[in-house]
């Protein structure tokens, strides 16, 4: 569905944000795109959508070169950016005015999603809060029936109940013929929903695995039980954050290492491990790495 090959891109003439980046996204998945601030997540999403043009390489989606921005591609794409503008329309007027551009737009679904997100469909959007406006755009995005949904920081600005509503909306939107790409800093908001996990670091995709692969290869243990990461058993040790009482950090270990796993991997710990040393984490995914990781 999305195929980026050899993408080189930078905003300045000399600066290179991406240098020959490759990324392939297949339908039926909700990709979680993670990366530090400034890693280029939003830029990568814009390159996928044909909103930025690579200096070198090819960006294709839905079988088309995205920079051409053809109607046949654009009607399969809906992009919810972090910063957006909403016209002085009600959500229902928005659906009537813009739904016509999307051949599979479902007005009933739009009404259902708005109700599920507790948005007043008759209220003008300019009178709504940022979070409410975002809910309207998310409801619209899902109702379009587009096969490529790109959501940039979708949970920013949503309150706690709305995050739960959004998770339900996104879970319902996942389909076999659809790719959903979610860029987020707030991984806990989308845990158990994003799969596979894609991590962008220093202009490259340094990690791309399904949750199943991650669970098979990695696990979390009490840091005290495995000792410091330098000892080799742990791939990464997260410092303790407990306030009062005994501090207890967590460590990411190779699932097949000598130490037995205690809990499933959480994405935040995984992310921190990958950005700390992605090669070390990657080694746990390669055949024969278990012994290597244990002996390191």
């Amino acid at each position: 569905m999305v195929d980026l090959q050899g993408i080189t891109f930078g905003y300045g003439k000399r600066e290179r944000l991406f240098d020959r980046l490759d990324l392939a996204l297949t339908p039926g998945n909700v990709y979680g795109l993670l990366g530090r601030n400034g890693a280029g997540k939003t830029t990568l999403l814009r390159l996928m959508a044909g909103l930025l043009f690579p200096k070198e390489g090819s960006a294709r989606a839905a079988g088309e070169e995205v920079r051409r921005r053809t109607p046949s591609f654009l009607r399969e794409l809906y992009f919810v950016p972090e910063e957006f503008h909403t016209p002085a329309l009600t959500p229902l007027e928005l659906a009537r005015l813009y739904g016509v551009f999307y051949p599979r737009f479902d007005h009933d679904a739009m009404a259902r999603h708005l109700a599920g997100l507790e948005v007043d469909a008759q209220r003008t959007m300019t009178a709504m809060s940022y979070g409410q406006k975002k809910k309207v755009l998310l409801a619209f995005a899902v109702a379009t029936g587009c096969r490529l949904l790109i959501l940039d920081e979708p949970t920013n600005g949503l309150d706690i109940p709305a995050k739960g509503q959004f998770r339900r909306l996104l879970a319902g939107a996942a389909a076999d013929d659809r790719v959903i790409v979610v860029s987020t800093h707030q991984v806990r908001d989308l845990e158990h929903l994003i799969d596979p996990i894609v991590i962008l670091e220093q202009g490259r995709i340094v990690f791309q695995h399904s949750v199943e692969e991650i669970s098979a290869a990695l696990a979390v243990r009490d840091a005290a039980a495995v000792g410091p990461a330098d000892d080799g058993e742990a791939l990464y040790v997260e410092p303790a954050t407990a306030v009062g009482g005994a501090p207890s950090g967590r460590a990411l270990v190779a699932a097949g290492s000598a130490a037995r796993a205690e809990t499933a991997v959480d994405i935040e710990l995984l992310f921190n491990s990958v950005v700390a040393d992605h090669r070390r984490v990657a080694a746990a995914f390669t055949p024969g790495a278990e012994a290597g990781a244990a002996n390191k």
Partner: protein
Amino acid sequence: MHTNNTFSIARAWYALRADLVQHHRAVLTGAGAAAALVLVINVITARQAHGGDMHAGLFPAVMGLGGILFTSSLFTDLHDKARAHGYLTLPVSTLERWAVRLLLSTIAVAAAAMAGYFLVTLLAAGISELIWGRAHGIFVPGADAWRSMLSYMVTSSLFLFGAVYFRRWQAFKVVLSVAALWLALMLLAAALVWLLFPALFAALDQDLNLSEIAPHLTGPIVQGAKIFYWAVMAPLFWLLTYLRLRTAEV
């Protein structure tokens, strides 16, 4: 299902409708202000009305100024990061995106100006008759008005390109760019004449009657400028606008 990726009248109509619905308030406010100004001028000057056609000067001025300001603001959504995502990912072709804005800047402005101006002068005539017992004539578009409209459409092509090219202060930057280009061309022309015909400059120190030779020098230039203005300028800047739109990024 096969999709026509070049041009679809239905998609262009949807895009035009979306533009009109989204921006109708701003357009109506601007048009209302212009209408009020024309009304006041018509009523106030009606007291000394002497049968001259004031619309011959006022109509082109109102249409030209209003149209250029409107045209210059046509691509503000392209230059605003929060709005550019929505504008550039709307499922229409670049040709449709371009055609809609071109239609708005040319035919829509001209038609709205003509109809609006006619209605305002009609209203102004009624008010003036009531107040002063005399009034300016009602605006009836004649050959001059049609020529003004054509001239506006050509000139607006430059401002349409300015709207897609410059991120802010589009109209001001277009005027400044044209002035700078004009000055540069004059200096270049003077330098060429100085290099190619040094005797002419030497003759300037003597008693040379410039008015005798000026028509021979400026005639071809004026003719060339007229051809450029009426036949080349609009298609050129419309094409440049299209090309810029096709390569626009967020």
